[in-house]
């Protein structure tokens, strides 16, 4: 308001000052904090490149603490389990249906299934198969068949008995959905209520684990209404779905019919889908979640640096996905059709440096298709370690003394690391044009096998090469298969692994496969260069106990044993 003397009123000045002051304060606070909280990829990447190496040492020190933390979680944690409470867990993984298990085909959905359902067996922290809904089993490679003895006294959530008929119904349901895990089961014979014999089409050493671990049993009664089951659940697990909001959350309540006496301890579990890692971390710090999976290493590093939270990493290797670089060797016109060129590619890349620069100490280098310490990991393998001079001489032997031009296809998440790898390749003469595509386009490329040059190789490295490597190496495999060669010796060895009558023979054949593919002298390098495995950092509040989220297979947890110490 203008006063009679022409000056503006104090009210105007005060109003302007207050308005400006409030807004400026929030901006200043924001600017001060924004660098640590921005999820802008360029900012975090620049930070990553300049600080990751130095921070790796700090994280390496925390790795010792991680190991201790992990070790402590393998045994019952201090204190008597307390009943009550609801565990809230968040990750970026989603599930299309928490209830109709044949349609859950990827590892990301296993955590949902493992809350409400159970399988005949599961993997312990060493990768050994141990009983769950089955108490024992016998195999007959000659017949061929697997006979299961089922656990008695188990009921589904709707009160239906878990028995041999239920197993048969479920196997047939999986077969209707063309699930690979049950493809080899020719028929199921119900011997008695708690004994079932699965007659196989042919002996395959992977069938036991496929059927034992990847089939999750639904109530036959609930299966009569699949549409309802899709949005709910009816299994033998410790919790059952009460609310399913697709892409948002799945909420579970305690299963009163659970077969383990006295368990579960929790009243319920809520699994939230939070795609944005910064938001997930903020919500965790604000106490809105009890446990989170943090797939973004930069954000995980920020959480570690707060020194307030426990971080665990799954080191068992089970269910983890390896990242590597795979050349298209099926294209006969491509230089990569020549094994020496593929070997040269492997020798040119320093995977340790890449992990140090981009991994914040949370990546483990690999030189074969297995996680260190797993049963199929050959610790004596002399692989294609970084040697640029050898790479150049191999290229010269292959007829490319001056190198050649090619393409390296990457997704957004690996762009920085793969660009660094491209620079390493350029130093030996393999000049890559980096081509970034989105995830779906990438899937299409490796499904159709028509990627040009080199692309990212993503493969489950669980200890069963017959099953997991076979999905890529089989001539009719769904992914990568059309873009790689299928040498006779590799195919024969794959067949030997699959038909191995005993576990010991299978493991020996798997070692031979590692040697055939990755040995430094004359490895086929069909799958190119394995780079690293990321051990799925899990952060949890200090009061969360007994979950074993990062101890056994990465898709599982002992949610029946989990309790909240608060």
């Amino acid at each position, binding site marked *: 308001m203008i006063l009679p003397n022409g000056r*503006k009123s104090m009210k105007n000045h005060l109003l302007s000052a207050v308005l400006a002051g409030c807004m400026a304060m929030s901006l200043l*606070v924001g600017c001060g904090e924004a660098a640590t909280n921005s999820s802008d990829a360029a900012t975090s990447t620049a930070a990553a490149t300049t600080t990751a190496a130095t921070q790796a040492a700090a994280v390496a020190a925390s790795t010792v603490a991680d190991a201790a933390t992990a070790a402590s979680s393998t045994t019952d944690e201090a204190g008597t389990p307390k009943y009550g409470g609801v565990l809230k867990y968040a990750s970026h993984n989603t599930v*299309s249906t928490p209830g109709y298990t044949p349609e859950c085909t*990827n590892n990301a959905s296993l955590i949902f299934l493992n809350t409400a359902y159970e399988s005949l067996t599961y993997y312990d922290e060493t990768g050994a198969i141990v009983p769950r809904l089955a108490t024992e089993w016998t195999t007959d490679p000659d017949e061929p068949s697997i006979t299961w003895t089922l656990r008695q006294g188990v009921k589904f959530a709707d009160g239906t008995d878990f028995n041999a008929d239920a197993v048969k119904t479920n196997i047939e349901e999986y077969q209707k959905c063309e699930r690979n895990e049950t493809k080899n089961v020719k028929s199921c014979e119900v011997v008695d209520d708690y004994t079932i014999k699965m007659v196989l089409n042919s002996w395959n050493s992977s069938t036991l684990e496929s059927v034992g671990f990847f089939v999750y049993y639904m109530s036959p009664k609930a299966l009569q209404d699949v549409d309802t089951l899709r949005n709910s659940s009816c299994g033998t697990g410790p919790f059952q779905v009460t609310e399913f909001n697709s892409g948002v959350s799945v909420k579970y309540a305690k299963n009163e019919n659970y077969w383990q006496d006295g368990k579960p301890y929790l009243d319920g579990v809520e699994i*939230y889908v939070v*795609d944005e890692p910064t938001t997930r971390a903020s919500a965790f710090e604000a106490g809105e979640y009890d446990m989170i999976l943090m797939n973004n290493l930069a954000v995980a590093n920020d959480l570690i640096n707060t020194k307030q939270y426990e971080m665990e990493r799954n080191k068992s290797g089970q269910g983890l996905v390896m990242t590597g670089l795979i050349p298209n060797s099926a294209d006969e016109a491509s230089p990569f059709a020549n094994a020496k060129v593929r070997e040269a590619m492997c020798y040119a890349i320093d995977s340790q440096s890449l992990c140090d620069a981009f991994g914040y100490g949370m990546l483990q280098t690999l030189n074969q298709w297995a996680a260190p310490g797993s049963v199929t990991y050959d610790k004596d393998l002399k692989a294609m370690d970084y040697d640029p001079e050898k790479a150049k001489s191999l290229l010269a032997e292959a007829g490319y003394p001056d190198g050649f031009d090619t393409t390296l296809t990457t997704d957004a998440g690996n762009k920085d690391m793969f660009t660094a790898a491209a620079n390493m390749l350029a130093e030996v003469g393999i000049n890559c044009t980096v081509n970034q595509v989105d995830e779906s386009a990438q899937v299409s490329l490796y499904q159709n096998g028509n990627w040009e040059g080199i692309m990212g190789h993503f493969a489950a490295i669980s200890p069963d090469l017959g099953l997991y490597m076979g999905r890529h190496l089989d001539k009719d495999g*769904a992914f990568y298969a059309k873009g790689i060669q299928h040498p006779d010796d590799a195919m024969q060895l794959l067949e030997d692994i699959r038909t191995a009558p005993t576990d010991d023979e299978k493991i020996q054949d798997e070692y031979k496969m590692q040697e055939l593919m990755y040995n430094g002298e004359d490895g086929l390098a069909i799958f190119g260069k394995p780079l690293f495995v990321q051990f799925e950092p899990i952060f949890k509040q200090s009061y969360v106990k007994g979950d074993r989220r990062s101890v056994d297979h990465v898709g599982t947890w002992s949610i029946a044993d989990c309790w909240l110490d608060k």
Partner: protein
Amino acid sequence: MNNKLARMIIRRIGQSIIVLLIVTLMVFLLMQLVPGDPIANFLGANATPEQIEHYNKLFGFDQPVMVQYWKWLIGLFHGEMGRSVALQKDISEVIFQRLGITLSIVIPAFVFAVVLGIILGITAAKNRGTAIDSVISFFANIGMSMPMFWFGLILILIFALKLHILPTSGFVSIKDGGISGYFSHLLLPMLVLAAGPLAQFTRQTRSSMLEVIRQDYVTTAKAKGLGKREITFKHQLRNALIPIITVMGVTLGGMIGGTVLVESIFVVPGLGNLMITSIKGRDFMVVEDGVLVIAIAVAICNLIVDILYGVIDPRIRND
């Protein structure tokens, strides 16, 4: 309703239908051209060729592209929007639920931006050249240029992590969380979504009001002794509203279709979130239906704007 207005509405609806058909056909063809397979994305890396073939047949993806489009179009006339590969649900069920959530954020944000934007715009115009005008214009410019993502993270940092007075993320309906639960989860996403439009409305109102303030009829109204409030709202604002309403219409349509970032930051399971997930997963049918719904929303906004022109300005009504 007078005949001219009715004819205008019918003509506009007819034009909108043609536009919608062209838009949906273009989107359908574009999604086919983009590399990626919804079944492969859904099944993941462990899929077998038999599984992929099984699901392709189940969803009709083994049929020619134009047959798929035609079947989808015919289905729309029967109220069927198809089935989502990723969600394994009828799309109509999902889309309208998600649209409802998006609207429950967009509408309060829009109303907030309009009301406050007009007030600030009037204030700035009335105090032209003063500190008030400078401050308001300065922050309006910041609002126009401030990255939404950054602003959202700042608000989370201040109000959720430091002050602990609001949740970081999530959406709670009135039914599940009551009024307080709904509003506490609504506030931050609403502020972020409203920031840009608020700045736009402020600037547009200021600009329109400045033109009107100088008009002779305003001088006449003052000379007649009319009160300031009456002059401002009955004479000045009403005459300044036409361009403001144009901006409002465009902005509302944009807000409905452009909530992706806000829904991503604040984990709001709305239509934007659904669209981005479906585009990434190549869930064609969901993208197609989502585009259709958004296009209809934009068309309705434009139609309302046209009608409002007639309401506000009798000269347009009688034209």
